[in-house]
């Protein structure tokens, strides 16, 4: 097997290339089109420019060469292969097909992999032979007037260069071409493939002679020419076709015996085809006065022994046809193959069947009856796309129907029955025909054979198409599901080993340009024995549709969009939402930075690395990413996906929570600090709300000032001791300065942002400065607009109260040195105009340290508090639940059992997420249990997860590590072993975690409009023998191997 690795990888690349190649080709084509259009206008100008230049050399290098086909040899392995051979009517699970040079070399299961061939793996798709249409779908009746002619050849009218993508999309790869069904003998039919090299498409140009019985009232053959002239003479009418069944049969016999007489007299041919009755030279046969190609060609076709394709309409036609064939055989002529077409139009199905089935035995009394083995092509598909005509109370009209094929099969088990659509109907859907026939009672195996092997046999093409067996052409279909499943689609079609059709990529029509970078993944349907939706319902034998990365529908039978992928995990498949790690550090790569509320931790996510893949494969699809350490005033958490093509797919919510720490602190001190933080935050939030209200009012009033303009507002802002805040004296030297300049700057640090003011070294005017502190790097910008832009200061605090660095003004860099002379908290007044000239309200100053508190105060994200003891939990619950009435997530909470009563009864309301319009946040609580599933409590083994869950407190699980999150399902399994119920474990990993973080509108359940994060288990996830089979994130499957 090792030697096959390389080609297999190549094949994977080939398989992956298919859609890409197509889109690339499209791109090139559209580019070229655009170029052509642009170029068109300049054609002559350009030509002139070219012409006045040099004269080009001869066209020696101009000729192109057709490249050899590289794709005609490969191995294909699918979920199931339907060989449809008589020996193997059932599908081969995990079957393989070896294709060499466009022909099938081997079909089977566990074949040895040829080392030289690429392998195409189709995990969910099935393969079956290309369908063979015997119904004459491409037939357009010829316009000639003759009632009997062999001169019309259907092969002439077959466009070998056409793109039959529509028919290939329905699975038809081989068709019978008919000259029409409008004459007694319309002409010579042919058999052709719908794809492949044009010169090889026609498989047999003279395949049969088309006879149609039961067409009465033919159009008149003679029509006086419009304006007869010397050019357009009035010619005598030619013979009308027979107008009765008797006449039809008589005419046929006459023509046939005439053909037999013709044998000895074939005009202009030495080697006239033998086989007729001997005619004496110069005998009865007299060459016609006027040469008639139609008779001539009929004779030729007849004498060549072409099979007869007899199209019937009425029960009596069948009778007549069978009798006719019997007489032919009795006449001693060589056995002539024949088949009947079009049985469902007959008015009396029962009589027709009687005629067919009862025929040989019932008439056996009247002498030795030769056995007539006549195959049938039944048009069964008619009428399912549009309602049929009214038949009212006509007692003679019976439902022609679905059951014909089944009855025929039951009455004549040996009969060869093929299914087809209407003649000339390019919309023919053979798969639908077979499905309809199974509804009528035909067995699925026979129904599939009736659109593949049997029509191939009837058309005498079974040595090349119709089944998958060594030596035959590699004409097969790749379907999204079993061929006779109504929801399957043809995803690809191969003809002669060449990929001739691939399903078009879906266009994202509903969401516009939501995702400009990547094409949406194709729609995905998952079928499973059990779907654990997450809202408390469990669907048995259900299915799930994911489109554009979102779950669109879940239920017993969901819609299947065109060309949807289907993952069939019945009957043991158990589908659950993707697991959520309620507190982890995936993506931080060990970064231990202390995070303040203004640090966007989600920025650490770029391209998903290998550690993401590892976690994703374990079934954890979302991680609530928290920094390792947070500042006293909290730190952001982000919700990130573990699999996705780019950042926009990976980051589910940029700020999904604010994390605070009480762990190891005195609860009362800690809670006081937090309370202060929240007071500031609330004031900030109110300022913004007020501004927004004013702005809304201003906008509603049409831009008029609402109150007095230019009202000044003063506020006092307070600072706290820290490495930056205070008064600094600085010296600037170097650059163009002849002598050092000194001055003072007053700075104030809030979080990591700095603001303050400095005395301008030139004129002593006060200037605002603002910037950031990153570690011990100070970045400041002086808010004065000079012609060369704003000066910036970059300095490093090299020791306490001392900073050195550079001032950059335009292109100059000056040396900067500063010493803090006063580090006491500084108060300074800030005055801002409240409104601008046009009355538009002035927004409050944006504070990135306080911004994350706004969604928190609105209840859109929870406060995540790292707590340990019961006392800490109590004060946290008091602050957040009682005072602030905010959603709370307790992280760790080892002492939760002590104060469980404080928490019970506050579990989040099941169901809808908090409405966005309602301002009142909901005080909910959840516990993220410690990473050690089994701890001790009161010196006894204790599992917080199992215990809290039993007490009715919603819980979630945390990894508290990066790719350690991969073990989360096993932690849950362990918790189950400790007494947590399997369903409770599922809830803890999915919906409860999502609800705690207010993410349940996107994650945690399989309801419509949730993200397409789906795990497919074999068996219940927390049963002993279950295993995770597939992981789907955002509608895309996480690959098994790299």
């Amino acid at each position: 097997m090792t030697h096959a690795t390389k080609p297999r990888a190549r094949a994977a690349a080939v398989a992956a290339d298919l859609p890409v190649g197509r889109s690339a080709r499209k791109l090139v084509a559209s580019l070229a089109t655009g170029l052509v259009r642009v170029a068109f206008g300049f054609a002559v100008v350009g030509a002139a420019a070219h012409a006045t230049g040099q004269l080009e050399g001869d066209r020696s290098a101009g000729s192109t060469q057709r490249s050899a086909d590289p794709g005609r040899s490969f191995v294909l392995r699918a979920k199931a292969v339907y060989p449809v051979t008589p020996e193997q009517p059932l599908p081969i699970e995990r079957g393989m097909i070896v294709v060499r040079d466009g022909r099938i070399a081997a079909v089977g299961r566990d074949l040895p992999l040829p080392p030289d061939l690429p392998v195409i793996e189709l995990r969910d798709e099935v393969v079956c032979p290309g369908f063979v249409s015997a119904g004459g779908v491409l037939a357009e009746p010829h316009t000639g007037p003759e009632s009997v002619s062999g001169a019309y050849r259907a092969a002439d009218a077959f466009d070998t260069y056409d793109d039959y993508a529509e028919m290939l999309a329905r699975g038809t790869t081989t068709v019978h071409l008919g000259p029409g069904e409008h004459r007694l003998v319309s002409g010579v039919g042919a058999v052709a493939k719908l794809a492949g090299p044009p010169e090889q498409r026609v498989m047999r140009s003279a395949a049969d002679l088309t006879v149609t019985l039961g067409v009465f009232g033919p159009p008149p053959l003679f029509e006086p020419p419009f304006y007869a002239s010397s050019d357009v003479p009035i010619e005598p009418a030619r013979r009308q076709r027979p107008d009765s069944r008797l006449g039809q049969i008589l005419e046929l016999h006459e023509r046939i015996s005439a053909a037999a007489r013709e044998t000895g007299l074939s005009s202009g041919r030495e080697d006239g085809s033998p086989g007729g009755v001997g005619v004496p030279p110069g005998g009865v046969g007299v060459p016609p006065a006027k040469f008639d190609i139609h008779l001539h060609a009929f004779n030729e076709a007849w004498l060549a022994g072409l099979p007869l394709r007899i199209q019937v309409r009425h029960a009596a036609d069948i009778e007549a046809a069978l009798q006719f064939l019997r007489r032919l055989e009795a006449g001693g002529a060589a056995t002539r193959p024949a088949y009947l077409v079009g049985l469902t139009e007959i008015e009396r199905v029962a009589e027709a069947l009687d005629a067919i089935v009862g025929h040989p035995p019932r008439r056996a009394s009247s002498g030795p009856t030769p056995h007539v083995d006549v195959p049938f092509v039944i048009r069964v598909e008619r009428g399912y796309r549009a309602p049929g005509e009214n038949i009212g109370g006509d007692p003679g009209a019976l439902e022609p129907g679905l059951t014909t094929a089944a009855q025929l099969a039951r009455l004549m088990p040996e009969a060869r029955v093929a299914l087809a659509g209407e003649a000339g109907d390019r919309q023919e859907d053979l798969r639908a025909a077979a499905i309809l026939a199974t509804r009528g009672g035909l067995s699925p195996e026979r129904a599939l054979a009736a659109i593949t092997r049997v029509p191939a046999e009837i058309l005498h093409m079974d040595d090349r198409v119709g089944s998958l067996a060594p030596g035959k052409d590699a004409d097969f279909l790749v379907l999204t599901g079993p061929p006779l499943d109504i929801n399957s689609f043809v995803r690809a079609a191969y003809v002669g080993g060449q990929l001739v059709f691939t399903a078009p990529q879906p266009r994202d029509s509903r969401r516009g340009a939501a995702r400009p970078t990547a094409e949406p993944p194709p729609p995905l349907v998952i079928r499973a024995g059990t779907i654990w939706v997450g809202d408390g319902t469990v669907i048995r034998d259900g299915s799930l549709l994911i489109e554009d990365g979102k779950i669109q529908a879940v239920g017993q039978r969901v819609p299947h969009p065109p060309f949807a992928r289907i993952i069939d995990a019945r009957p043991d498949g158990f589908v659950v939402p993707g697991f959520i790690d309620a507190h982890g550090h995936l993506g931080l790569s060990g970064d231990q930075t202390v995070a303040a509320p203004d640090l966007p931790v989600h920025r650490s996510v770029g391209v998903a690395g290998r550690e993401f893949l590892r976690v994703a494969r374990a079934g954890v699809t979302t991680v609530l990413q928290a920094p390792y350490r947070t500042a006293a005033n909290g730190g952001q958490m982000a919700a990130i996906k573990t699999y996705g093509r780019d950042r926009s797919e990976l980051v589910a919510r940029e700020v999904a929570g604010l994390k605070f720490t009480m762990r190891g602190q005195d609860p009362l001190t800690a809670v006081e600090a937090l309370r202060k933080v929240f007071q500031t935050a609330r004031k900030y939030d109110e300022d913004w709300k007020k501004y927004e209200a004013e702005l809304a009012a201003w906008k509603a009033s049409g831009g008029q000032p609402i109150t007095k303009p230019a009202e000044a507002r003063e506020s006092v802002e307070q600072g706290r001791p820290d490495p930056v805040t205070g008064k600094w004296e600085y010296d600037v030297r170097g650059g163009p300065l002849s002598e050092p300049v000194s001055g003072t700057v007053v700075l104030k640090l809030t979080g990591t942002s700095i603001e303050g003011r400095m005395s301008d070294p030139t004129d002593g005017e006060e200037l605002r400065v603002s910037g950031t502190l990153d570690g011990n790097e100070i970045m400041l910008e002086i808010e004065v607009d000079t012609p060369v832009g704003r000066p910036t200061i970059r300095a490093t605090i090299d020791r306490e109260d001392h900073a050195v660095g550079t001032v950059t003004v335009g292109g100059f860099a000056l040396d900067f040195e500063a010493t803090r002379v006063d580090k006491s908290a500084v108060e300074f007044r800030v005055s801002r105009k409240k409104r601008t000239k046009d009355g538009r309200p002035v927004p409050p100053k944006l504070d990135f340290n306080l911004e994350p508190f706004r969604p928190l105060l609105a209840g859109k994200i929870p406060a995540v508090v790292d707590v340990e003891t019961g006392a800490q939990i109590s004060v946290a619950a008091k602050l957040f639940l009682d005072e602030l009435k905010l959603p709370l997530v307790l992280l760790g909470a080892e002492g939760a059992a002590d104060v469980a009563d404080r928490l019970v009864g506050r579990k989040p309301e099941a169901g809808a997420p908090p409405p966005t319009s309602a301002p009142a946040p909901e005080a909910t609580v959840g516990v993220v249990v410690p990473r050690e599933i089994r701890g001790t409590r009161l010196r006894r083994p204790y599992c917080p997860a199992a215990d809290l869950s039993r007490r009715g407190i919603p819980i979630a699980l945390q990894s508290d590590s990066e790719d350690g999150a991969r073990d989360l399902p096993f932690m849950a399994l362990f918790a189950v072993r400790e007494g947590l119920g399997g369903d409770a474990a599922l809830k803890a990993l999915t919906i409860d975690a999502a609800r705690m973080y207010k993410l349940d509108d996107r994650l945690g359940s399989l309801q419509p409009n949730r993200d397409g994060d789906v795990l497919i288990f074999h068996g219940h996830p927390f049963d002993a023998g279950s295993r995770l089979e597939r992981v789907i994130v955002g509608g895309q499957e996480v690959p098994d191997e790299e």
Partner: protein
Amino acid sequence: MHGKPRYSAFVPAWLRGFVVTWLCGFVTAGAVAQPPAVPPERVALTGARIIPVVGAPIASGTVLVERGKIAAVGPEVEIPYDARVFDVSGKFVMPGMIDVHTARGLDIPNESRPVTPHLDVADALDPSQLFFEDCLRLGITAVHVIPANNTVIGGLGRVVRPIGLTVGEMTIAEGEFLKIAITPRRGFDRMLQMATLRETFLELDDYLARVAEKRYEDKLKEEDKQIDVGPDEARKRGRDLVRAEDVDDQHRNLLRLCGGQVRVAGGPGPKLFQPLGAFVYCGNAMDIALAVRLAKDHAFFDRTVLVLGGECHKAVAELKQAARPVVLPGDLTYRATDPLTGEVHETFVPKKIFDAGLLFALVPGPDDSYAERMLNYQAAQCVRYGVPRDEALRAITLNPAKMLGLDGRLGSIEPGKDAHLVVFSGDPLDFSSVVEQVFIDGIPAYDRAKDVRLQRLLSPGTSDSTAKPE
């Protein structure tokens, strides 16, 4: 010597809609072309930038014409004292362009009967058609007039020059090609079209066989003998007795198409006629295979020119294998719509044909497209899309001459060839260049300065005044 060139065109034919009214008055005023006289003995075009098509261009040279034939070409040509000299310094001289496939010039493009091999366009050519004037104006000096594509077997074509009062005067060469269409004519489908074609040829075989039989019977009758053999044998014995006058009009051209030699009962008979070729119209890619098979079956493949529709570029592999000359459609860009996505893909046909190494000729576009009516515009488009300049020029001059078997007479500026010369004001592939003068067989046939219709059309205000009948 001569007072003025006599063959100048007088009335512009384009924009016929409004010109027609005063045109009638003008023509009756006696301004029709005068009969051709004996061409000047010697004509010399001096100082020209010569594009000879065969061989390198000459930056400044002389073309000397004697008795309608090119006598000498080169930078240094001695001009005889009696030559009429046209100083065309700085202008471009190229061989007359050839329209290799057109039904214009006929009163109707196609007869209403489908199979008319016995017809000859000579009977329907109208020398007074404005089309021929337009040809001069556009620099086309030879036109292969042949029945149009809406037919099964159309009839015999003819190569004419756009001057002369009678068909005889116009004729450059007798018809050598029949028109055959594979793409169904109106009211036909492909099965009927092909059946009709096969019938025509089978009927010819049958006809010849019956003629042979009749000849043998007549011979026996002359010898007062009774018929002694069956029909097949009689045909064999009679096939050498078939004479040219036994073949009627309907069958003569068909027999010529098939090589001119009688074949009856599988054996060869006498060769009665010179063979004919065929211009076979293939509007769709699928027609190529049918055309090739038909031509091979009936032994005219070596004398076949394929007239292509735009879609035929898809069959470029088959065309390459057939290696027959092709005439490209007037619309050089083919547009196809993807059946599933609805996207339109464009293909520039000449480039694909050129890349396949085929001998190809360009034809003017539809009448209502002013630019594409000009063959030099068609060639310029080819250059724009990557066909080498030389090849693009050949596609409107020498290639059509080769297809018509007239490359010994037309298509390039070489000593000994007919003096079909076009004087352009600039590079012929520059759209701002115009045809200034045209010489056909040495006759100064067109002079832009004396093109009255063009002047009236181009002079300001004429369109209003001429719209009113006088």
